[in-house]
């Protein structure tokens, strides 16, 4: 109990730290393209991924799928094909991370801290992550060949730094797509300031809406 509440506090601290870093980035890289993503209802859509093709990739960076407070952090990670992703365990409990996704089925059996070796994602696709002992833990790694990509933050803002001017093929993905590949939006000039992209996602708040069981659906249908 104490530990749990302590973890919550910690998460809150991390979140404020992160947003501070973003705003720092925002102010430093003044040429970054910023697009707001909304759902069908026009509400800011977080954890959505914008992918831009046709332009060279930026410098490769470290891809980490952390586990904090029995949650995958970030919830959605975009990684280029062929990258190694670290699965550090920031919790003081063990996790058993697995994925049965065809893009990369793997299993990291009960590990702690940095015990787990990095996993290489060499095929494009969606990899749904789960923890065998913590059913509530769901994470997504979108393995893509697109050079540029970004995940929308809590405000639905997607920031793509150093995006060359002009129209580029843009596609999007959201956890509600499950293992479906990203959906193309056509060529767009994302550098235009104040752009808002409305995506055909129904629930903006909860990324993975739990699917009703067929029996329940039937029952509901019958009850109606």
């Amino acid at each position: 109990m104490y530990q749990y509440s302590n973890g919550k506090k910690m998460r809150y601290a991390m979140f404020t730290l992160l947003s501070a870093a973003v705003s720092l980035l925002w102010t430093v890289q003044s040429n970054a393209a910023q697009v707001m993503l909304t759902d069908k209802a026009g509400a800011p859509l977080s954890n959505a991924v914008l992918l831009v093709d046709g332009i060279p990739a930026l410098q490769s960076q470290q891809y980490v799928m952390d586990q904090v407070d029995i949650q995958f952090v970030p919830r959605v990670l975009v990684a280029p094909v062929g990258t190694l992703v670290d699965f550090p365990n920031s919790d003081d409990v063990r996790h058993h991370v697995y994925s049965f996704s065809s893009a990369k089925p793997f299993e990291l059996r009960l590990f702690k801290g940095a015990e787990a070796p990095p996993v290489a994602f060499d095929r494009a696709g969606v990899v749904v992550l789960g923890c065998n002992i913590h059913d509530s833990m769901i994470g997504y790694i979108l393995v893509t060949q697109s050079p540029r990509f970004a995940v929308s933050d809590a405000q639905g803002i997607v920031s793509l730094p150093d995006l060359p001017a002009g129209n580029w093929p843009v596609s999007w993905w959201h956890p509600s797509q499950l293992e479906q590949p990203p959906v193309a939006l056509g060529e767009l000039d994302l550098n235009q300031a104040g752009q808002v992209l409305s995506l055909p996602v129904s629930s903006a708040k909860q990324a993975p809406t739990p699917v009703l069981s067929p029996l329940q659906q039937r029952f509901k249908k019958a009850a109606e």
Partner: protein
Amino acid sequence: MRIRYLRTRLIVTSVCLLSLVLGAVFFAVYTSTDFSAERQAQRQLEVGSNVFRNLLEARARELTNATQILVADFGFRQAVATGDLATIRSALLNQASRIGADQALFFDAQGDLRISSATMPGSDTAQVESLQAFSEQALIAMIDHRPYLLVEAVVHAPVPVGQVAMAFSLDAALAREMQKLTGLEIRFVSSRDKEVMSTFSTTPYAQQDMSLQQGTQRLEREGYLTTAITLLDQAPYSVVAQMASPLSDALASFDDLKRELLIITLIALLASSFLAVRLSGGLARPVTLLAEAAKRIGRGDYTHKVTLARNDELGLLAESIDAMRIGIAERESLIAHNALHDPLTGLANVGVMRERLNSSIVSGQSGVLAQCNLVTAELMVKARGQSFMDTLVRQSVACLGGQLPADSLLAWQPGVGFLLLLERRDLDEAVVVIDAMLAQLGEKMQVEDIKLRSQWMAGVVEWPLQGRDAGELLRQVSIALGDAAPGPERIAVYQAQRDQAYQRRIRLARDLRYAPEYKELAVVFQPKLDLASGEVRQVEALMRWTHSELGPITPDEFIVLAEQTGSIGMLTQWMMAAVASQLRNWIDRGIHLQVAMNISARDLDDPQFPQRIEHLLRAQQISPEYLSMEVTESAVMINPERSLNSLRVLRDLGIALAVDDYGTGYSSLATLKSLPVQDLKIDKSFVLQLAEGSDDAVIVKSTIELAHNMGLKVIAEGIESIDSLNWLKERHCDVAQGYFISRPLAAAALEQWLEDTRGTFGVVESA
């Protein structure tokens, strides 16, 4: 009979009452146990149905957990996520058999049924036909026409990739299990469009009797209390769990109680009936005894003592009845004694005498009946009182004791005297006995403070000579007693003629009172000759009674009767009126005669009598000198003082008075001296045979001289010859009266006679 009825009624009443009470108790207990049994059954049903539901839910929870374990299994998840259907099937079957599921289902992420553990022949997968939530975790499903309890679990890998459902058949096995736990009969009925598809039941009872309605209801015929829980109701399918609580079970628990109650009731009824019989017998038996005793007493049997050895009211009643028995016996013997005996003397009474007489007559015996009484009984009662008389009688009875013949019967009847019955004796014998008895009674004896000698007389009658009837003989003996007189005649024998005379007297006494009314009376006048002058100046008025049937009645007969019966006053009245009327008539016609009439002792005894005479004379305006009155010495002597007083008043009025019938009865010179009379009338018995030298002549001669010496005129009556008349005339008798001069004549005849004989007697004298 009535007692028996009372007893029966007592028994019936008490037994009925008891039956009623016990019946009511029995009924109350019976009903309440029935009610209680039903309530118990109902309660069992409620509890059972709750238990049923909870059990089903618990089972569902259990199954859910088991299913959750399956879907949480990494390998299973992997199999599902990788779409390894064969693995999935084997895992499903494995888990299903582990948890005892009858059907295991797998649905893929798209919700399509991919695997079912049990299938109908000719089909790959089972058909889920209907589904309805039963609880949070459980559903009721209709799969392949069979009802199931179904639990589900979603397979996450980690997103939902499939779904597993485990179903448990609602079958007989479950029903039995539920029955064990709830104690109710369970039945699952699934139907489609109201048509029953399948039934799983723990009881053999008929399906159509089971209602599919929800709620508790009773099935009387089957003896069940049932309720139903609708598990699934999705048209056209429905699944109903029916629960039945057999009433018999609940009732059975009371059977022992009822049986015991019945036994107790019967024992109580028997015992109390026995008691009622005993009690009523204890009441009715003594009542019967008492009734018999009362009947005995009613029959006159007082010999049996009535007693009941009890201390209660019945014992008291028996004592009272016994006291009554003794009292009645005493009083009855007293009454019987009094009925047969005279209370004064203790001798037999007239009733006994009558009885004895009758039986004697009937048995053909002869005998003599005597009645004797004290001569002066009336006087003695008047003078000394009844108690003195009673004492005298008692002492007389005492002195007779043992003197009479043993076979005689002596009785005393108040007002009658002694009655003596002498059987088998002729008259002479009897008279000797009676005379001895009278002599004995006449002995001197001391009564209270007086020594006296009482005089007794007796009447005697013989039977069957004089009669054959006791009443008649008693009457005759009483007449005979009336004929007896003190002295030698103290025993009078009844004779038939005397009886006829007596009857005639009674008749005359009765008719005399009506004689004036019937105008049977008449006045005749007998002339009185004044011997000195040879003239008739006076007449004696005499009464004549001509009875309508018996003819003329002599004055000797009816005057005596009138004096005895008290009619004399009435006769005097009549006479006075007749005489006054005649006098008035004569005076008016210039005939001047002094009329003499006889007055009785009763007239003299009446203080009003002189006054009445005066009024009468005044009313007719007749001078008192025209009237004279003749009174006998003995009449005066009955009440001398008052009589003398009356005579003086009459004398003072100026009415002439004469002493009548002088020489008979008391002839006291002292009395004569005191009487205010002018005339002395010598009785005719002395005058009838006047012959020289006879006793009568001496008496008459000396009487005339005596009277003259006392200053009285002498009247002689009964002159029937010239010799007598002359003799009297020579002896200076003043007035003569008799048949020789004239018979008594009616007024008209007298007037004629006076006319005819005027101067005749003067001629006689001179002749």
